């Protein structure tokens, strides 16, 4: 690649490859309570990422020797669909799936009041239907909504976002193209926003101290926005229901 062909990750106007500003998220929609058979569920789209999360439990632990008489255990299942990446993904859970299941499960354990349900397990099934970088933060954000939707007591919602560096600039919510930059750093971070307690922090690459400060500030701001969407998604269910019945009644009244 010659010098002229080099990608400009942030141009002079401060816009990125896909036209976003450096502190702008990809479009995010969250919908809670989408599956009837699950205790709690959530469908989230974040840019090209599409994830579906369902929650079962608390219920009896199987196999029984995994149970903890002092608290509940969280079984987090992160799986990517075979069609979620450009090439076919082997549906067998690989190294990456197992790692993400572990870190996301541990992040949620910090938020859930596990001691209320001794000897039980809470199952979280996360299916990634389509992905374009940042699927673990998408899954974690959706999972906490699904858990709240299942009525499981939690200290706070877990909110996650990725920050990173591409082309020497600190940017928010990287997509695949930016993640593949030669100097790329990708840092997924998950917080319980009201207590500012970090529950997940991973880093691919290295930040300097000043870059880290800048990145954290950027992430903290974005997390507030995401949290708002989570809360809205949870409350919307009940507002919608009441609106539906109201309109139904209105229609009925009109007919009569």
């Amino acid at each position, binding site marked *: 690649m010659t010098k002229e062909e080099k990608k400009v990750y942030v141009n002079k106007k401060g816009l990125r490859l896909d036209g976003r500003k450096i502190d702008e998220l990809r479009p995010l929609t969250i919908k809670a309570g989408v599956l009837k058979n699950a205790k*709690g569920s959530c469908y989230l789209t974040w840019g090209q990422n599409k994830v579906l999360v369902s929650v079962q439990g608390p*219920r009896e632990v199987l196999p029984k020797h995994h149970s903890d008489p002092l608290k509940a255990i969280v079984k987090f299942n992160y799986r990517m669909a075979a069609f979620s990446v450009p090439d076919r993904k082997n549906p067998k859970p690989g190294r990456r799936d197992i790692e993400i299941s572990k870190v996301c499960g541990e992040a949620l354990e910090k*938020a859930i009041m596990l001691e209320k*349900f001794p*000897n*039980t397990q809470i199952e979280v099934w996360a299916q990634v239907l389509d992905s374009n970088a940042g699927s673990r933060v998408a899954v974690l954000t959706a999972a906490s909504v699904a858990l*709240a939707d299942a*009525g499981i007591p*939690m200290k*706070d919602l877990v909110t996650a976002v990725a920050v990173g560096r591409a082309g020497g600039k600190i940017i928010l919510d990287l997509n695949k193209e930016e993640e593949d930059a030669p100097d790329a750093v990708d840092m997924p971070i998950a917080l319980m926003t009201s207590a500012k307690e970090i529950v997940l922090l991973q880093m691919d690459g290295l930040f300097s101290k000043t870059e880290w400060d800048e990145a954290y500030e950027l992430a903290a701001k974005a997390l507030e926005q995401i949290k708002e969407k989570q809360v809205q998604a949870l409350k919307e269910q009940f507002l919608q229901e009441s609106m539906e019945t109201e309109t139904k009644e209105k229609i009925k009244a009109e007919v009569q």
Partner: protein
Amino acid sequence: MKKIVVPGELITEQRKKMGEHVYSFNGKIYSDVIGITDNESAFASVVPLKGCYIPKYGDIVIGLVVTELFSGFLVDIGSFSLCFMSKEGIREPLKRGSVVSVRVSKVNELNEADLSEPRVFYGGEIYSISPVKVPRIIGKNGSMLEVLRRGTNTNFIVGRNGRVWAKGGNIQLLFKAIKKIEEESHLPNLTNKMSEFLLKEKK
């Protein structure tokens, strides 16, 4: 004023007695579940809109006899695990598959319950709802029960675990009404709405 809260949402910064489904952090009180809170009440508490059944002492629940043991029965009451009911002092002809209403006579720290006082149901139908909506089906001092009973002429029993057993009368209408209550449990003035609904449906 009543409002809907989600886990981690601030309920009050004042010092208040703490009720159910709240926790305190740095001197402030937060909700730990999705539900409804009333900021005019003396207690800071949340009535959950979603959740599972946790057995409590004295609850009347509807269960299914799953297995017979040497000294008792295992009954499924929709809790985390099967519950034990001793044969001692039981005269009812219980067997596998019997549907019973039972009283929770003991709960331990693992939420495992012991049951007693079975009453066998013969015939009838069972409808399941979310256990957190049961108080709305009962209403204040059983007002909603009275409305449903009068409106449908059914003989029914509501278990704390969210199972409703009904026999006789207009069962379909009863279940339709219960479904409506479950859907609109977060809205005010439900009893009046339901009596109107039942009147309309009867015509």
